[in-house]
């Protein structure tokens, strides 16, 4: 709507300039100026805090009897597009760093999922991330995380949850997710 409004405003200003020329007695009594404005499809994404990067530190709770570790962290992200087809967000994972004795089983015990947030446009998680995927199965080259079908503001949550048995071991797991939004 904003784009349409600006197009109308541009047309009105053009007409006003043409009328002024007529009042000044310019010999041309009629002018035609075809005006065309193309608003490109664009999309943007920021965290709900307005940042381009966020840290998700999970503080686990360890069961005193089973030593199972649980915990989660989430971050809301705001996406916006002017495309009438909406936008899609892809996610890709950096390398996973295991330190302090952590083993691959501990990384596999981290689940990554997506849920719709508080935006005016619904963000629909992909099936994989609606159900949740283990950290090590997140693509390192990018895959669909969620998408919208309309222009406007959507919000989605990136959730990372830990549910590790004692046998998964202890230590530190770290990685980086990169999310890219593109207008459809």
């Amino acid at each position, binding site marked *: 709507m904003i784009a349409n409004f600006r197009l109308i405003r541009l047309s009105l200003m053009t007409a006003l300039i043409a009328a002024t020329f007529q009042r000044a007695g310019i010999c041309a009594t009629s002018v035609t100026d075809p005006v065309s404005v193309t608003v490109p499809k664009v999309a943007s994404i920021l965290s709900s805090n307005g940042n381009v990067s966020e840290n998700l530190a999970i503080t686990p709770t360890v069961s005193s009897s089973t030593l199972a570790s649980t915990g989660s962290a989430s971050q809301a992200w705001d996406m916006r597009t002017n495309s009438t087809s909406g936008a899609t967000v892809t996610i890709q994972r950096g390398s996973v760093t295991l330190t302090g004795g952590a083993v691959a089983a501990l990384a596999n015990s981290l689940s990554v999922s997506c849920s719709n947030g508080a935006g005016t446009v619904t963000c629909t998680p992909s099936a994989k991330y609606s159900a949740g995927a283990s950290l090590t199965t997140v693509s390192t080259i990018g895959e669909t995380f969620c998408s919208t079908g309309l222009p406007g503001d959507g919000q989605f949550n990136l959730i*990372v949850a830990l549910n590790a048995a004692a046998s*998964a071991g202890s230590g530190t*797991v770290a990685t980086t997710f990169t999310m890219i939004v593109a207008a459809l």
Partner: protein
Amino acid sequence: MLTSGYRHLIMLALVMMPMPLAWASPNTVVQARVNVTVPKNAALVSSSGASVENAAIPISIDNATLEATGQKNTRWNVTTNSSSGARVTIERTSVSVSKGASDAILNDIHVRCSASGGSVTPISKFSSGSSLNNIALNGEGLCSMAKAGTGTFDVTLSVRAPATDGNGNVNATLTMVVAAL
């Protein structure tokens, strides 16, 4: 003059063009850094889930020699999330001997540790068995586990006391402590 008018219009269009672009932020890539640290832990409970078990040894007396024999077994589950495993130590309180039993009976009560599940390995001293008197008051290794997970071990108390040891009561408390490696 007409040329001049077109120039104004074109400039107007150029001024207007960036405005729709400015409506959307150019930030199309964001990053989330994830970090989780699970601390090392270890836990030890009996197979019934208790942290304290009473090991009263039932005694059988041989009719001919009056030798007293008997044993009591308690199963313990050790769990750790440490990739290096865990170690269990055992320590003994002072032993009380009453009702006429002689101190010799302390040497005839044995404590033994055996693996019954998981990657538990008893310390050699307790694999073969140690007399109650020889258990350190300030703690010593009982068994260890080599990797994360749950293991099970048995602590067996046994008595084989000749008649010369006398009769009476022997009481002590054995405390086992587990630590992640």
